[in-house]
């Protein structure tokens, strides 16, 4: 019998990288511990990582605060995320299907024009967009944040690649059965692109959930604030309630982390798929 060799090298590597990973997350641990302290104890040294008397009520205040309850802020953000994704995925799917499966005049020109628009930063178009939304009466309206997300070149590009991978025979068979293009897309192809839709959806969710500049310039009414502005509300406050600042930050971050842990596979695949553009 041979003794199994102890994999020292692997263990050492794991320990070193483990320490590094732990240090990497230290800012978030500090945030959590500060969010559970009284305002005067937040900056105490030595750092008390697990506070002696834990202030759960900080979170109760954040979530039920009269001026800026996080329940409302969350509802607004979920509303924005839902309709952003719905529009973005539907329109991108349709465009991707046309580019990958249909033959039409001007295909390359339209595609190149869309692709070139990747170089146009939203920040460069924000002033005319602001004027447009103001004229349309969408200022201080959540749709001003939702509408621009309905066009996303990366999503179109990623879905197009996916449609390319699906067989063309499906189209011919459906045509013989007398199905129109819209039904071929919706009933035959769309269900097959689910993995790509999930991946694109996750990326879209991260970016709408964390968006800051559009809400900052479009939303003035506190009732319409999204999560980013909800956190900012506690920053503006001059009451030096640092514990509340951290509780607000944690209230935005922790649910996202739980979501990532629960769906790690999809998050990872989503990002990896977006990177595969060869």
């Amino acid at each position, binding site marked *: 019998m041979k003794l199994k060799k102890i994999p020292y090298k692997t263990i050492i590597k794991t320990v070193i990288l483990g320490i590094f990973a732990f240090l990497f997350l230290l800012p978030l641990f500090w945030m959590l511990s500060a969010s559970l302290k009284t305002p005067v104890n937040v900056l105490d040294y030595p750092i008390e990582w697990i506070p002696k008397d834990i202030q759960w009520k900080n979170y109760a205040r954040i979530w039920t605060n009269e001026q800026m309850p996080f329940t409302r802020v969350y509802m607004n953000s979920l509303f924005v995320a839902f309709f952003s994704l719905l529009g973005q995925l539907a329109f991108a799917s349709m465009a991707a299907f046309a580019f990958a499966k249909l033959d039409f005049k001007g295909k390359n020109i339209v595609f190149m024009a869309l692709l070139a*628009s990747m170089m146009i930063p939203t920040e*460069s178009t924000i002033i*005319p967009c*602001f*004027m447009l939304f103001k004229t349309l009466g969408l200022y201080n309206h959540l749709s001003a944040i939702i509408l621009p997300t309905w066009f996303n070149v990366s999503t179109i590009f990623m879905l197009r690649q996916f449609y390319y991978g699906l067989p063309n025979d499906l189209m011919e068979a459906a045509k013989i059965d007398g199905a129109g293009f819209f039904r071929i897309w919706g009933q035959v192809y769309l269900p097959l692109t689910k993995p790509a839709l999930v991946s694109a959806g996750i990326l879209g969710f991260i970016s709408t959930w964390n968006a800051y500049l559009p809400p900052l310039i479009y939303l003035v009414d506190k009732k319409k604030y999204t999560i980013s502005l909800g956190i900012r509300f506690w920053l503006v406050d001059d009451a030096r309630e640092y514990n509340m600042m951290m509780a607000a930050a944690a209230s935005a*971050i922790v649910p996202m982390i739980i979501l990532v842990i629960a769906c790690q596979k999809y998050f*990872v695949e989503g*990002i990896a798929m977006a990177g595969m*553009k060869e």
Partner: protein
Amino acid sequence: MKSRIKENIAAYCFLLPTIIIFLSLVLIPLLSSFVLSFTKWNFISGLKGIKFVGFDNFVKLSKDAYFISAIKNTLIYTITTVPIIIAVALGLAYILNGKIYFKKTMRLAFFIPYVCSAVAVSVVFKMLFREDGPINMVLQNVFQVENLPRWFSDGSINKIPIILFVIWTSIGYGLIIYMAALQNISSSIYEAADIDGATGWKKFIKITVPLISPTTFYLLVVRLIAVFKIFTSINVMTYSQITKYNTSVVSRIVEEAFTHYNFGYASAESFILFIIIMIITIFNFIGQKKWVHY
């Protein structure tokens, strides 16, 4: 013949929503922003207040110390963060793809900052780097530093918290993309190198780095553009402490447009941003041929 026409019509129906939004919220705004950049216009004065001033805005911008330092700062943010992000992400991905325990847990740990709300994390960094914050406390008590750095008000160092923020939040993204790409490298190449007696480091430099170069290129473009548009972290962290030393191009645009309502001037700034991003992208695609191995 008839079916061809039908297909053309169908295709444009599918593209219609995309084209409408592209035209109304991207292309026409970009052109308008170009036109506006030749005007002097305070939004509050209404449409009647628009005045054509030719190249005045651009002449003014070339002498605007604030804008020039915003461009300089933005370049510094880009140059200091992107190479580190790419190098660390590749290194971590290489190690995590090898023999190691708790692979998924560690990948998750490095990935978490990427999905966190940028505003929330900026608030945390703002606290960590306070003059009486935990980082300075550790510097004082553990490392016996006497003159504690004033991270946000000292012009020579107030880019550091922002740089660290960018690196910290971006590594996870690069890591995931590199790990996926590394899995696509055939193990037979490494086995052949083993037979030739190549060491770990040599294998990394001679095999991994060249084979992974398309991914590095992709990350480089994506990260350069992202950092060049840096705004959220600066806006939140330097709340009421924004200075010539840490402001960025987008911060300038937003302040000029939505604090002072100088839409003409801000449009000129935003058009310069567009030109810079376009140059970065085109330059990268030209340079790509020189060092990317497909």
